[in-house]
């Protein structure tokens, strides 16, 4: 047997905090120069007229793309640091023994901060119900986690402002809590695939890592690279289309079809949004431009939620553990809840 010298542990960079400080400063400077820079390129360097359609579209594009990419990198980093303190295992432990109601509220809130990927929806579902967490509470988590996702919330904040982002988060939470409670009341346990109830998790001790701050920073940086790397192209294309709409579509062109008066626009937006999942990053800039042209906020938010929260890929993955009846109830309840939210915002705002 050869003796191997233990490889040096990979986390020995002591200079991460100074690097972080410099990065923060650079970020702040960059964030503040992009507006003047975009204007300067469009109107001075290229000499486009300020009220020309092309000039307006270009300035909009040159400002929004770096702004959103900067916001995404900075905020995904911050959120990822917070997430290193949470894990599905800890969330499960916190939810254990919670009654329905309180449990649903906790599950929805934890859904925001627990690291979650829809590819892990099945092991997470099994792990939750098998440890005795009620089905409805599990669903509150499974609805909140993808709906209130960082990319969607950050882009809403960047393009619509904090009020719309907060509205989105709040209504996502309420929908997750209520839909989970309804699914719990309906006693749908028999529509969970039978093999789930037969699984017994091993006694294997779940991984319990003690992370140093350096490791948290490195992991957060890894997720920035992963997430921004995955969505940047959608962001660029989405903003390009949005910029085109901004410059070329006549004002109030959409009042008739996406405005408050068009009652059917909310359900239509939800039906259209369900199959469009992976393009959330590209869709938000487009709907933001549509809103300028007369689409109403409720309709736009309903569309957003359907795109992000009711995802076809996640549903297909969940089909492995849920019978079709429960899948149908799951989609039905969320669709109804989103449509209701859309109408509510159209009425109150």
């Amino acid at each position: 047997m050869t003796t191997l010298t233990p490889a040096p542990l990979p986390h020995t960079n002591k200079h991460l905090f100074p690097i972080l400080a410099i990065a923060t400063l650079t970020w702040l400077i960059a964030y503040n120069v992009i507006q003047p820079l975009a204007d300067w390129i469009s109107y001075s360097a290229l000499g486009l007229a300020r009220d020309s359609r092309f000039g307006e579209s270009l300035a909009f594009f040159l400002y929004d793309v770096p702004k959103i990419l900067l916001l995404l990198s900075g905020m995904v980093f911050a959120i990822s640091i917070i997430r290193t303190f949470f894990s599905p295992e800890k969330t499960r432990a916190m939810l254990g023994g919670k009654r329905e109601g309180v449990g649903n509220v906790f599950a929805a809130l934890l859904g925001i901060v627990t690291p979650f990927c829809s590819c892990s929806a099945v092991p997470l579902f099994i792990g939750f119900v098998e440890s005795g967490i009620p089905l409805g509470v599990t669903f509150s988590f499974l609805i909140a986690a993808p709906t209130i996702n960082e990319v969607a919330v950050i882009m809403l904040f960047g393009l619509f402002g904090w009020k719309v982002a907060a509205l989105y988060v709040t209504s996502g939470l309420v929908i997750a809590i209520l839909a989970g409670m309804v699914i719990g009341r309906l006693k749908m346990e028999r529509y969970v695939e039978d093999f789930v109830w037969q699984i017994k998790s091993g006694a294997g001790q779940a991984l319990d890592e003690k992370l140093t701050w350096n490791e948290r920073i490195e992991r957060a940086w890894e997720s920035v690279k992963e997430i921004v790397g995955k969505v940047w192209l959608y962001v660029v294309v989405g903003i390009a289309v949005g910029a085109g709409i901004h410059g070329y579509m006549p004002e109030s062109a959409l009042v008739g079809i996406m405005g408050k008066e068009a009652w059917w626009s909310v359900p239509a937006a939800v039906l259209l949004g369900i199959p469009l999942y992976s393009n959330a990053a590209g869709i938000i800039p487009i709907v933001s431009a549509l809103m300028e042209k007369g689409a109403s906020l409720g309709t736009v938010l309903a569309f957003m939620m359907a795109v992000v929260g009711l995802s076809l890929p996640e549903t297909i993955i969940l089909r492995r553990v849920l019978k079709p009846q429960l899948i149908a109830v799951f989609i039905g309840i969320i669709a109804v809840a989103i449509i209701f939210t859309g109408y509510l915002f159209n009425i109150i705002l």
Partner: protein
Amino acid sequence: MLTIKVLGSGCANCKRVEQIVHKVVEEMTLQAEVIKVTEYPEIMKYNVMSTPGLVINEKIVSTGRIPTPAEVAAWLANAMEKA
């Protein structure tokens, strides 16, 4: 001889982990068997709720993320010492 298991039902990240493991094993010229565990009942035996998971000699070393090659190398070296 090491037994390395990659837990996950064939998602993109699981494949990445498997590639990294193969690469590191090759670079370190280790004798190791790399097994893909794709069935949920089997994954749940390790009490893992976020995939991809990485198990070396029946010990869970990573869940829910793609570890760096350097981390994998450190874990493998550690496991060789104990073996």
